[in-house]
C-alpha cells in the first residue's frame, strides 16, 4: 500500500473469489462482500488501518489521502463506489465539503469519522448529510455494518431516483422502476432514503398513484440527492451567481430542465426567507432570518409578483427571483410594505413561496406556482417572508385557491395543503379546495415540475435538511416542494410528508397551493422548512403560513386545526416534528407568520414570533397530533432545514386545514412547529 503518495490504492479485499461484486452489479450473493468503499483520510496510519479492516470485512477498498483526489475518482467512475468514508479534518478540503459534494454529485452514502467526538461536530456531520459518524479509533465492528447505508440508500433511491435523475419523473414510472436502482450508489445521504420514500409517497399521492400518465407534465422530484446536487451547485456558484442555467449545468442531471432548477431555486429562496435560519451553512441561510412578520404585507405583494413569475414560466424562471426580490423589497403591489429582506437570494427563494401564497389573486396564481417551487426547496424560508405572506392573506386565499385548482390539476401540487388550515382567511378559503380558482396553469406548471404535490412536501423537508441547501431556493419546478432533495436532509427524510400527500408547501407560497391541491403532499413538509431554518432562530417566519396555509391570517389560527389533518406526517415528517412542534405550539401569530418552525426542531423551537394568532397554536397542536406522528425528524438536526420544512409543513398544513389562513403567511405557526413531533 502506498500510503505516502497521493494515490488511491485500490485493493481487493479478499482473498478468495468471494469478491465477485462488480460495479453495477447490484447486490450479489456475497453481499456485503465486495462492497466498494472509498476511504479518504490524510492520516496515513488511519488509512492503513482502515484499509486493512475493510479488507477484512471483505470489502473492496480504495484508499485516498486527499479529498480532491477522492472526488476525482468518484467523478471518473460514477458507479464505481458504493460508499465513501471520510475524515473530517483534512488539509486540502474540509470533510464536510467533500460530504456535500459527494452527496450532490454522486449521491453516495458518506460516513464521516474523526477523533473529535464533540457534539457539534457530530451534528454538523448529520446536517451535512452524512449517513453515519464514527469516532476514531474506528473498530472493525463499526465497519462491518456500513453496508446497511448502501442498501438503505438504494432502496429509497429507486423509488424516486429516476425521477431526479431525469428531472421529469413520472411518478408511476419511477417507482415502478425495478430495483436495479438498488444499486444506485448514488444516494449518499441517509436522507435519501427518506427522500425517496417521500418522493415516492408524494408521487403516489400525487394522485397518480403510479400513474404518471395523468400528469400533464412530468414531475420533477427533488429527491434528497437531487437537491443536494442542487445545493452543491449553488454553493459552488455562490449565492449571487447561482442562476438556474449555471446550476443546471453544474448539476448535470439528465432530464432536468432549467425551469425545474429555476423553480426549485425560487422555492428555496422562499424557504430561506421564511425560515430566516441562518444556519444554513451554505449561504442561503441568511436569508432566513428575515423579519418575518413585518413583511406580511409585502408578502402578498410579493407573492403576486412571484406568482406571476411563476405563472409565466410555469416554473420560476430566474427572473422570478428577481421579481420576487423586487416584490419583496418594493412590495409595491400591495399591501404592507413588508420589509422583506430580499437580502439574499435565498430569502427570496424561500420567501417567494410563501409570498406566493399570500399574494393577491393574481399573485396567488403566481405565487402558488412559486410556492410550489420553493417547497421543494427547503432552503430557507424565511419566516419573515411568511409573515408577509400572511399579510397578503387575501391574496393567499386567492392563491390558495389557485393553488388548489392547480394542485388539483396537477395533482401534485406541492402545496397541496390540506385545506384545512383556515389560518388565514385566505387560506381557508383556498384550502377549501378551491383549486378551481387556481389557474390550472399555475398549479400545474409548478407542480408538474417538481412533483405533484406529493413530491414537494417530502422534498421540502429533505431539503430543509440541511444547510446543504444553502440557498436552494430554486425556482425550479420545485413546486413540488416535496422534492425530496434527499440531499438535504440527511436522514431526515422529512417525515412530514408522510402521506397526506399534501404537498408540503415548503415554500410558503406553496402552502397555498398545497392547501388546495389536495394535499398530496404532506403538508407538514412546509413547516419543516421553517423549523429547520428557524430552528434556533426565531422563526419569525410565517409559520403560520406554512403550516396552516390557512391560518395565514393571524386570527385564523384555528384554521389550522382543521386542515392540519393533512398528514400529520407532513409536519412531522420532517423530523421537525420535534421542532415543529414547538413552534407550533407557539402560536405564531398569523400575521407574522413567524413560523418559528425551525425552532421546534431544536426542541425549543423558540417560538419565534409565531405570531400566528393564537389559533394557530391550536391548530398547530392539532396538527401536531396529526402530523407529528410521522415526523421522523425528530432531530432537529438541521436547524436550517427545519425552518424550511417547517414552513413547508406549516404551509402545507395550513392548506390542508383548509386554511385559509395561509395568507397569514407563515403565521401558521400555531401549528406547525409545535405539532411536529420531535
Amino acid at each position, binding site marked *: 500500500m502506498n*500510503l505516502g503518495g497521493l494515490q488511491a490504492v485500490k485493493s481487493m479485499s479478499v*482473498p478468495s473469489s468471494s469478491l465477485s461484486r462488480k460495479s453495477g452489479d447490484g447486490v450479489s450473493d456475497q453481499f456485503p462482500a465486495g462492497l466498494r468503499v472509498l476511504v479518504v483520510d*490524510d*492520516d*496515513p*496510519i*488511519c488509512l*492503513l*488501518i482502515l484499509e*486493512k*479492516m475493510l479488507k*477484512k470485512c471483505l470489502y473492496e477498498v480504495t484508499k485516498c489521502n486527499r479529498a480532491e483526489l477522492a472526488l476525482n475518482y468518484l467523478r471518473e467512475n460514477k458507479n464505481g463506489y458504493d460508499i465513501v468514508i471520510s*475524515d473530517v*479534518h483534512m488539509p486540502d478540503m474540509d470533510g464536510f465539503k467533500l460530504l456535500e459534494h459527494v452527496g450532490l454529485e454522486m449521491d453516495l452514502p458518506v460516513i464521516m469519522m*474523526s*477523533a*473529535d467526538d464533540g457534539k457539534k461536530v457530530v451534528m454538523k456531520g448529520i446536517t451535512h448529510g452524512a449517513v453515519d459518524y464514527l469516532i*476514531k*479509533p474506528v*473498530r*472493525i465492528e463499526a465497519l462491518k455494518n456500513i453496508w446497511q447505508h448502501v442498501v438503505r440508500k438504494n432502496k429509497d433511491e429507486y423509488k424516486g431516483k429516476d425521477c431526479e435523475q431525469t428531472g421529469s419523473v413520472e411518478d408511476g414510472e419511477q417507482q415502478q422502476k425495478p430495483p436495479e436502482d438498488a444499486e444506485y450508489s448514488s444516494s449518499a445521504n441517509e436522507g435519501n432514503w427518506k427522500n425517496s420514500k417521500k418522493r415516492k409517497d408524494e408521487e403516489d399521492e400525487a394522485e397518480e398513484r403510479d400513474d404518471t400518465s395523468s400528469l400533464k407534465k412530468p414531475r420533477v422530484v427533488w429527491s434528497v440527492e437531487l437537491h443536494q446536487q442542487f445545493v452543491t451547485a449553488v454553493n459552488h456558484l455562490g449565492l449571487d451567481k447561482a442562476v438556474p442555467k449555471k446550476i443546471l449545468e453544474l448539476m448535470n442531471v439528465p432530464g432536468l430542465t432549467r425551469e425545474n432548477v429555476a423553480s426549485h431555486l425560487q422555492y428555496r429562496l422562499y424557504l430561506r426567507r421564511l425560515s430566516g435560519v441562518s444556519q444554513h451553512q451554505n449561504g442561503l441561510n441568511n436569508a432566513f432570518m428575515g423579519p418575518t412578520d413585518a413583511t406580511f404585507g409585502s408578502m402578498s405583494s410579493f407573492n403576486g409578483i412571484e406568482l406571476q413569475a411563476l405563472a409565466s414560466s410555469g416554473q420560476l424562471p430566474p427572473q422570478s427571483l428577481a421579481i420576487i426580490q423586487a416584490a419583496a423589497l418594493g412590495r409595491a403591489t400591495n399591501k404592507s410594505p413588508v420589509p422583506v429582506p430580499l437580502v439574499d437570494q435565498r430569502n427570496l427563494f424561500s420567501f417567494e413561496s410563501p409570498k406566493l401564497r399570500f399574494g393577491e389573486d393574481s399573485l396567488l396564481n403566481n405565487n402558488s406556482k412559486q410556492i410550489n417551487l420553493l417547497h421543494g426547496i427547503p432552503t430557507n424560508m424565511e419566516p419573515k417572508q411568511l409573515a408577509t405572506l400572511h399579510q397578503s392573506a387575501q391574496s393567499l386565499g386567492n392563491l390558495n385557491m389557485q393553488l388548489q385548482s392547480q394542485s388539483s390539476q396537477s395533482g401534485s401540487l406541492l402545496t397541496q395543503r390540506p385545506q384545512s388550515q383556515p389560518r388565514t382567511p385566505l387560506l381557508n378559503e383556498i384550502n377549501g379546495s378551491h383549486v378551481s380558482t387556481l389557474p390550472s396553469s399555475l398549479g400545474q406548471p409548478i407542480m408538474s415540475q417538481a412533483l405533484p404535490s406529493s413530491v414537494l412536501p417530502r422534498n421540502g423537508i429533505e431539503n430543509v435538511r440541511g444547510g446543504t441547501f444553502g440557498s436552494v431556493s430554486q425556482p425550479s419546478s420545485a413546486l413540488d416542494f416535496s422534492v425530496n432533495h434527499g440531499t438535504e436532509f440527511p436522514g431526515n427524510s422529512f417525515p412530514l410528508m408522510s402521506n397526506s400527500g399534501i404537498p408540503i408547501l415548503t415554500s410558503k407560497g406553496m402552502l397555498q397551493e398545497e392547501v388546495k391541491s389536495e394535499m398530496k403532499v404532506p403538508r407538514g413538509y412546509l413547516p419543516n422548512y421553517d423549523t429547520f431554518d428557524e430552528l434556533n432562530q426565531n422563526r419569525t417566519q410565517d409559520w403560520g403560513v406554512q403550516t396552516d396555509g390557512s391560518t395565514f391570517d393571524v386570527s385564523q389560527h384555528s384554521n389550522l386545526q382543521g386542515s392540519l389533518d393533512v398528514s400529520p406526517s407532513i409536519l412531522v415528517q420532517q423530523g421537525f416534528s420535534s421542532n415543529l412542534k414547538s413552534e407550533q405550539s407557539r402560536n405564531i401569530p398569523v400575521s407574522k407568520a413567524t413560523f418559528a418552525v425551525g425552532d421546534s426542531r431544536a426542541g425549543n423551537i423558540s417560538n419565534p414570533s409565531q405570531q400566528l394568532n393564537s389559533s394557530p397554536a391550536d391548530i398547530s397542536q392539532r396538527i401536531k397530533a396529526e402530523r407529528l406522528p410521522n415526523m421522523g425528524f425528530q432531530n432537529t438536526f438541521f436547524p436550517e432545514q427545519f425552518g424550511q420544512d417547517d414552513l413547508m409543513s406549516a404551509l402545507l398544513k395550513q392548506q390542508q386545514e383548509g386554511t385559509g389562513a395561509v395568507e397569514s403567511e407563515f403565521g401558521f405557526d400555531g401549528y406547525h412547529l409545535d405539532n411536529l413531533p420531535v
Partner: protein
Amino acid sequence: MERNLHRQLANMKKSLFDQGYLDEQFIQLEELQDAANPNFVEEVVTMYYRDSARLIQNIDHALEKNPLDFAKLDNYMHQFKGSSCSIGAKKLKNECTQFKEYCETGNGEGCKRTFQQVKKEYAALKKKLEHYFQFARQVGPVEKACRPK
C-alpha cells in the same frame, strides 16, 4: 521453550495493557494480522513513529512562538491524537486530550507542561513497543514452526 517464550510475550503484552500504555485498539490491530500480513501491527507502529515525529517537531516549534497560536496547536495535536489512538496508545491519547483542552482555554503554560508529558509518554511507549516487537519476532517464527498446521 517456545511455550516459555510465548508466555513471556504474553506477559509483556499484559503488562503494557495493565500499565495503561495500550488499549483495546491495539488488540484490534493484532486481530488484523493474518498470514498475509504477519507483522501488520509492527508495520503500523513503525509508520506511526515515523510520521508522528514530524508532528512532534511542529508542535515543539509552535510552542516556542510567542504569542502562542492555539488554533494551530490544536490542529497539530488533533492529528497527532488521531494517529496515536489509532494504534491504541492509551496514555498518550489522554495526554493529547489534556493538551487540547489547554489549547481551548488558551492556557499556554498548561500546554507546554502537558506537551512535555506527551513527549515522555511517546518515548516510553516507543521503547516498550520496540522491545515487544523484537521479542515477538523471536517468538513468532519459532512458534509458527512449532505450531501444527
